[in-house]
C-alpha cells in the first residue's frame, strides 16, 4: 500500500536543536531543526518552509542549509511580530514546519557553466545551500563567484564560513559594504560594482541573485550590461506568502504565485512584470 500523501497545510512538529546568533544583538539567528519522529523532508536549495510558532503565527523562510545529520537550518531575521517571538525561542522548544515549497535554484542547469552568486544582506541565506552544493560538487562547475553586499561590516552573515570559502582557491569570494569606518580594509560600494569587475564568461554563466528587490533590479542591469542573457539570470522573489500552495492568492505576482511558481524564477519570466509598480 502506498503512503498517504502528506497534507501540505498540516505542520509537522520539529524540535529546535540549537539556536545560533548570526549577528551581534541576535537580530538574525539560525535554527537547526530536527523532526520529532519521522524523517526530515529534504528540500532543495532555494525552496522554503513555512515555520509555525504555536499560537503566534507562521512565516515563510528559505532553507539556509541542509544538515547532513538529518537536520535542517533556517536563518531568520527578527523583523516583524512572528519573527520577534521566534527570536525568543530556545533550543529544545517545538515549532511546526510545513514544506518544503516552491522552486529551487538551477544547480543542475548550472553544471558546466561559470556560476555567479550575487547576494545582498540576508539574501545570502537562501543562496548558502547553493554554495554548499557547488563546493561539494566542485568538478561539475567552471568558475564560481560569490559576490556579497551588505550594509556594514558588523552585518556580514556567516562570517566563519565566508572566511573558509575565501581560504579555498576554487571560489572567488568578494564582500562589499555600503558603509564602513576607517578600520575596514575590504571593499566599499554596492554589490553591483562587484559584478562590473567581471572575470566570468558572461555567455556561459548562470547567475543566481537574492536580496532586496531594488538591489536585484540593479544587479540584473549590471549582469545584462556585462552580457549575461536574461534567461541565465535567476532571482528569488519575496511576497506575502501565506498558504504556500497557491490557494490563497496573497503572493500573486502578475500571473504567477510566488509560493508555487517561485520563489526562484528565471529573469526572462519576470522581465515584463519587474517594473510594474502596482505589483
Amino acid at each position: 500500500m502506498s503512503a498517504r500523501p502528506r497534507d501540505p497545510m498540516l505542520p509537522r512538529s520539529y524540535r529546535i536543536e540549537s539556536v545560533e546568533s548570526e549577528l551581534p544583538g541576535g537580530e538574525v539567528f539560525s535554527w537547526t531543526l530536527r523532526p520529532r519522529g519521522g524523517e526530515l523532508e529534504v528540500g532543495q536549495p532555494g525552496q522554503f518552509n513555512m515555520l509555525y510558532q504555536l499560537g503566534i503565527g507562521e512565516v515563510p523562510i528559505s532553507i539556509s542549509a541542509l544538515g547532513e545529520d538529518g537536520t535542517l537550518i533556517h536563518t531568520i531575521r527578527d523583523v516583524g511580530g512572528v519573527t520577534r517571538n521566534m527570536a525568543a525561542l530556545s533550543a529544545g522548544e517545538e515549532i511546526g514546519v510545513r514544506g518544503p515549497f516552491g522552486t529551487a535554484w538551477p544547480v543542475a542547469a548550472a553544471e558546466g557553466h561559470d556560476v555567479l552568486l550575487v547576494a545582498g544582506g540576508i539574501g545570502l541565506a537562501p543562496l548558502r545551500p547553493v554554495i554548499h552544493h557547488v563546493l561539494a560538487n566542485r568538478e561539475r562547475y567552471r568558475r564560481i563567484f560569490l559576490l556579497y553586499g551588505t550594509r556594514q561590516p558588523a552585518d556580514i552573515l556567516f562570517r566563519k564560513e565566508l572566511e573558509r570559502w575565501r581560504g579555498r582557491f576554487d571560489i572567488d569570494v568578494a564582500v562589499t559594504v555600503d558603509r564602513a569606518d576607517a578600520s575596514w580594509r575590504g571593499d566599499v560600494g554596492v554589490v553591483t560594482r562587484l559584478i562590473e569587475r567581471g572575470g566570468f564568461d558572461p555567455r556561459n554563466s548562470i547567475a543566481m541573485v537574492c536580496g532586496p528587490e531594488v538591489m536585484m533590479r540593479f544587479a540584473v542591469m549590471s549582469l545584462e550590461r556585462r552580457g549575461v542573457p536574461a534567461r541565465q539570470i535567476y532571482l528569488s522573489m519575496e511576497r506575502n506568502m501565506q498558504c504556500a500552495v497557491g490557494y490563497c492568492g496573497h503572493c500573486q505576482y502578475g500571473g504567477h504565485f510566488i509560493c508555487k511558481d517561485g520563489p526562484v524564477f528565471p529573469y526572462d519570466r519576470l522581465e515584463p512584470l519587474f517594473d510594474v509598480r502596482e505589483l
Partner: protein
Amino acid sequence: MDDLAQVFAEEPFFSGFSDAQLRRLAGLARPEVYQNGRYLIRQNGSADRFMLITTGHVVLKAFVPQRGMVPLETLGPGDPLGWSWLAPPYKWHYDGRALERTEVIAFEAEGLRQAMEQDHELGYRLQKRMIEVIAHRLQAARLQSLDLYGNPAGDLP
C-alpha cells in the same frame, strides 16, 4: 603602437579608440606604482592627472569631522580614478589610498585637456567614456544611499 599604447588597447576603458588616439594618449601617460598604504590622491590636492587602475585596489575616503576618514568606495582593476581633472577647479574631492600594491597608468591632466580641445574626436570619445563611468558611479552612489539592507517598511509577519 608603442608598449604603453598597446597596454591601453587592452583596457576596456579604451576600447573603440583609434591607434592614432591611443598613441597621442601614450605621449601623456606613464605607469606608476603605489605600495600598500600610499596615497594616490589627496583631498583638496591638485587634480593634475587622470589614472586608470591596472592592478590592485584603491579606497576613496572623505574626511568627516568627528568621524575621521570615512571610506566611500573601493576601485579596482579597469576602474578610472577620479574625474576632478575634467572640471574646474581641478582639485581632488577625496583621498585615494592603495589597499595593496597598485599599478596605474597616469595621464598628465593639463596635456590631456589640451589634447581634448585640439582634437575634438578624441575629446568627444574620452568625455563619452567618462560620462558612462560617472553615470554608473552616480547610480551606485544613489543605491548606496538607499540603505537597501535596513529593515523593510510595513507590517511583516
